[in-house]
């Protein structure tokens, strides 16, 4: 006996760690595959989807052709031209590599899933006749039988029977779950395994459209569409690219004017112009953009949440209002005893003793919590009453009491009205203070249980909804993020208000019906807000569909899963919090790397432009930062340009970890985030290239590459 389960042990971590966390970001296998994919992705048809990298690839092809011609006809500066050409290709390859890295983990996962799919056989029922066919031949509406040891051949609903099912293939959770016909636990997923008993399943999806198929599609990113923000950002990047193409193109006539006027120098070569162009256009963000999106989806996946689209994840970052069910999300599933309140003239120990005795045989969570409270708070030791003369009285709906008959005395606990009636029946009288105490507890949102020994009332046990530990901190975080939390509960407004207050949510919807829930979502949305909610029942489905982010529990019904745009395989409603953070991270990472990418350009101008016009306008050397510091005499125009191009290519590789992991998100409010990110990625982006390019320049000189 003795239940140590406390609120704290059950509380979610403030930053839940993804269960499928990768062992390392750069696992050998993934890197190898990504390197091969990077070459395959050079196909111009694939690159064309990304305007920035497409421009780089076109430039690479041009310089390659020119370089080949130079090789054949003898060029003036083969070493330089060759290196520029090579680094332009590397720039494209590195961007492809980043994307392939992001896809790598999903691909490995998809392969594992595919294996479960292809081998499955189904036992189809036609009338009373049973036949064995391949799972892929099943159609919507077929009935199949699954017994212990069978793999369920497709998604469906249990129409008959009850079974325990191992869903680890999709959830990674090894503890079996119960699936039964009728009610909210009737949905089964193809690829999961029946452990016991026999069920009949009606198939609800055709081959190719099953949950596993969708999951494979999602983890592979095969059907990945650009999200609205990604599209807008691509437009911005494409616009910036066109501006820089024009800037570089117009530089030739500008230079022609200067050269003609000065009478010395030459027009910049195509290699130089390509080098400048590639350094200016936002290749860093252009190369990492799709990797950021894929990695974001992958992070959601690692939290065991299946998001049906990237759009849903992005919407999670924008959520204004979060609707959370009280039971299971905000509070522990059951009420717990928190206090014993004796009537006047009764020793608290006597009450504790009676309360404990009445609950010894009570295996309900409430009953156990009373025993625990008596033991821990009131110092009563656990007792063994298996000496034969104790007679346990279980709870019954008619009496609404439970207890024990021990040594001739009747010890009872139960609803106040029931206990009062019991006392009066035994000929006792109830002191008026009992009603005062029970009223007080009710109005505070608790549930009072009266305790009596024979015809004497001793006091009241205060049962309370226990708010999960750490919830208040989480809601504070939400508030800092600018998200309003609303608790949904079937309780009366009084109880709801008290729990809402204790948990620290911003609002509540009491006596909630599906209609009221729907109305609340609509009202929020009409004010321009985005709403997220969780749900599992069939009656949640309309609200899940209406919400901008609907996280359905995998344990829930098929209808709920189809209505929502995300499914939590762990069926943990607090997961929404992680999804919101990932959505925000996704947007932040794009913004931060865009800023970084554009801020980088400033330094590159300072070394490439003076190098380009070293002969025509030698005075421009004064603004070339490579001309300062040790070894400045060795720096040449060629080494300066090469250093900038190499930096531009390598920074893509260097930033892959940020793209894949995401910029850390802290719920500190928008202004603080903006200042921090502007400082790190804006100012950092401006300054970092200076020392980096300087070092590369000196290295190139030392290696005699320029």
């Amino acid at each position: 006996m003795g239940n140590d389960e406390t609120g704290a042990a059950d509380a979610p971590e403030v930053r839940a760690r993804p269960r499928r966390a990768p062992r390392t970001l750069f696992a050998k296998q993934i890197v190898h595959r990504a390197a091969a994919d990077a070459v395959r992705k050079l196909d111009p048809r694939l690159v064309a989807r990304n305007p920035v990298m497409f421009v780089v690839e076109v430039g690479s092809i041009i310089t390659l052709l020119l370089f080949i011609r130079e090789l054949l006809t003898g060029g003036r500066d083969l070493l330089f031209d060759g290196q520029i050409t090579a680094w332009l290709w590397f720039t494209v390859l590195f961007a492809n590599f980043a994307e392939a890295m992001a896809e790598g983990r999903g691909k490995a996962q998809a392969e594992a899933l595919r294996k479960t799919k292809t081998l499955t056989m189904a036992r189809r029922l036609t009338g009373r006749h049973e036949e064995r066919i391949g799972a892929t031949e099943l159609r919507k509406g077929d009935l199949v039988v699954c017994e212990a040891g069978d793999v369920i051949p497709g998604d469906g609903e249990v129409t008959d029977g009850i079974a325990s099912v191992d869903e680890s293939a999709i959830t990674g959770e090894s503890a079996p779950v119960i699936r039964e016909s009728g009610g909210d636990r009737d949905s089964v997923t193809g690829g999961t395994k029946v452990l016991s008993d026999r069920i009949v399943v009606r198939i609800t999806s055709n081959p190719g459209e099953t949950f596993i198929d969708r999951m494979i599609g999602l983890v592979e990113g095969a059907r990945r569409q650009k999200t609205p923000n990604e599209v807008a950002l691509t437009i911005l990047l494409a616009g910036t690219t066109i501006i820089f193409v024009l800037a570089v193109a117009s530089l030739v006539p500008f230079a022609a004017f200067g050269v003609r006027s000065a009478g010395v120098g030459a027009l910049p070569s195509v290699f130089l112009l390509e080098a400048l162009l590639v350094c200016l256009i936002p290749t860093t963000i252009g190369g990492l953009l799709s990797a950021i999106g894929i990695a974001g989806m992958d992070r959601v996946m690692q939290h065991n949440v299946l998001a049906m689209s990237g759009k849903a994840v992005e919407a999670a970052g924008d959520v204004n209002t979060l609707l959370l069910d009280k039971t299971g999300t905000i509070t522990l599933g059951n009420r717990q005893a928190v206090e014993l309140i004796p009537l006047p003239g009764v020793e608290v120990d006597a009450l504790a003793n009676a309360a404990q005795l009445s609950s010894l045989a009570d295996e309900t969570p409430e009953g156990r919590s009373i025993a625990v409270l008596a033991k821990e708070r009131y110092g009563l030791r656990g007792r063994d009453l298996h000496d034969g003369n104790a007679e346990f009285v279980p709870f019954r709906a008619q009496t609404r009491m439970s207890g024990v008959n021990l040594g001739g005395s009747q010890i009872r606990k139960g609803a106040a009205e029931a206990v009062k009636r019991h006392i009066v029946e035994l000929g006792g009288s109830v002191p008026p203070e009992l009603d005062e105490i029970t009223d007080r507890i009710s109005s505070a949102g608790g549930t009072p249980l009266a305790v009596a020994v024979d015809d004497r009332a001793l006091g009241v046990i205060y049962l309370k909804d226990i708010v999960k530990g750490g919830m208040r901190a989480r809601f504070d975080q939400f508030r800092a993020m600018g998200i309003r939390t609303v608790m949904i509960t079937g309780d009366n407004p009084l109880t709801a208000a008290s729990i809402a207050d204790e948990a620290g949510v911003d609002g509540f919807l009491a006596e909630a019906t599906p209609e009221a829930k729907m109305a609340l979502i609509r009202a929020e949305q009409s004010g321009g807000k985005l709403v997220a909610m969780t749900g599992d029942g069939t009656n949640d489905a309309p609200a899940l569909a209406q919400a901008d982010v609907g996280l359905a529990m995998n344990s829930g019904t098929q209808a709920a899963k189809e209505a929502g745009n995300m499914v939590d395989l762990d069926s943990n409603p607090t997961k929404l919090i992680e999804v919101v953070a990932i959505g925000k991270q996704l947007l932040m990472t794009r913004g931060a790397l865009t800023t970084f990418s554009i801020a980088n350009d400033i330094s590159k101008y300072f070394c490439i432009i003076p190098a380009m016009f070293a002969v025509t306008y030698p005075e421009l050397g004064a603004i070339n930062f490579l001309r300062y510091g040790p070894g400045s005499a060795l720096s040449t125009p060629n080494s300066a340009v090469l250093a900038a191009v190499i930096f531009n290519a390598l920074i893509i590789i260097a930033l892959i970890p940020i793209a894949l992991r995401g910029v850390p998100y802290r719920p500190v409010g928008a202004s603080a985030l903006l200042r921090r990110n502007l400082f790190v990625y804006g100012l950092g982006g401006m300054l970092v290239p200076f020392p980096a390019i300087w070092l590369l320049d000196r290295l190139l000189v030392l290696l005699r590459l320029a």
Partner: protein
Amino acid sequence: MTGHGILEIVLFCLTVTALTKPLGVYMHRVFEGQPTALSRAIGPVERVIYRLLGVRESDDMRWTQYSFALLAFSAVGMLLTYVLLRLQGALPLNPRGFGGGQMPPDLAFGTAASFATNTNWQSYVPEASVSTLSNMLALTVQNWTSAAAGMAVAVAVCRGFARHGSAGIGNFWVDLIRACLYILLPICIPYALFLVWQGVPQTFAAPVVAAGLDGSRQTLLTGPVASQEAIKMLGTNGGGFFNANSAHPFENPTPLTNFVQIVSIFAIPAALTCTFGRMVGNPRQGWAIFGAMAALFLCGLAVCYQAETAGVPAVRDIRVAAFEDDAPGAGNMEGKEVRFGIAPSALFATVTTAASCGAVNSMHDSYTPLGGMVALLNILCDETVFGGVGAGLFGMLMYAIVAVFIAGLMVGRTPEYLGKKIGKYEVRMAILALLILFATAASWTALACTMPIPPSAAALNRVNGSSPALDLGGASNNVGNPGAHGFSELLYAYASQTGNNGSAFAGLTANTPYYNLTGGIAMLVGRFLMIIPLLAMSGSLARKQPTPASAGSLATDTPTFAFLLAGVVLVVGALEYFPALALGPIAENLQMLARQAF
């Protein structure tokens, strides 16, 4: 730098800031159709005009209708200007008998485009080319209407942010007429009278013939100068009655008129930020925009004033007395009026290029490379530093969309500005406007650098009215200086015209068919192809429902945002034009520091 100079600058900043709120609040009431102190006097006139034009005040236009009305109105205005200029010889009020010869078709086209777009680029000598009637009916009328049209567009763009779920963005005709009647007219009348009091002529009388000190006879041209001067400054037009513009004693006679003229350039653009804040229901939003503009302005002014004060080292080396450190008037006085000195000239130059005015009281070509670069960079940043009447505000809002989009992502939300989600449509339109401005200025400059004019087409680059013997040949031969400075002249010319500034770097021989035609196109593209995407953006924004602000949304009414916005303007401008600036003013500055002579 002198105490006097700094005092004047501080006084200037205080005056503009003090004017911003009252004028901004007033303009807000005017454009929202709320009663103002002048309603009783002007209201009946306004209603009569509506009745005559068949305009219904309540009609709300979609952005397409608004754009069409603007384009149609500007096209008709431009055509009228063109016809008046071409026919001036046959029309009255032409005391000096100018005809079509002074206004050949290419020049008349360029001038009509110039005044219809609020640019006021003048490649002709006004006192030797346009009749009094042309000045009054063609040019000054355009000064009014192009300024009012700019304000109308700015207000329409603001409405995109201010309105919720609305199909329309206001009525162009109503906005235009209100801007003229309630804002320009009540200021210009006392303003012109003030100028008359200070000595600016306002007369139809014949030129005054005076005897010079050396006994020679001098013809002093006069005319209805004050009335044109007032709207020239207030409407950020900049087209002078005289070639010397505000350096001419008849346009800008006293230090007081000089001060008032500079203030009047910034008055409406600065106040429009306040109007914007009021329209979107949060005055702080307006002040954030004001702050970003003010920060950019002060940086530019500091560099320009410092560069002009420091002067040219090679000149300093020979220790000319006037260049003694700290002596009054030290520094680069070339091209500046001795009446004004360095500080008022540097202030005027920075203000006139920051706003798209283009009036000058000193010659920008003669500035030090860095001083001139400030003027150039002001223009290259699309004149968003207060900018033209209306044009400055909607230009800055274009940058705000870009800033909000990137910064908004960095706080982890779909970017929003004033509650409106910035989606692909808004980004596309803002980038399109930005791209059009850059592409126009850069390509025309690039073309001018290399454009060969074959002998068979030599007339294309022949100065209007000159003989074929003086044909210039290639387009790049029109520059007045060699090397980096010459390049600056070309870049400045097309930047000024694309940006609808109208000030000239001078030095460039611009009155040839080639420059008049290409410049005219640059001005039209720079004005209308920038406005149309922004009106489209406004139309899309007006339809949207706002998202309520929360702790998670980007606050755009803070100093951080003002700083960010200023940074975006500067970085975008610098990134676009760094190569050009390096080959122009930066190279020239480094050559100057290296004591290189030309």
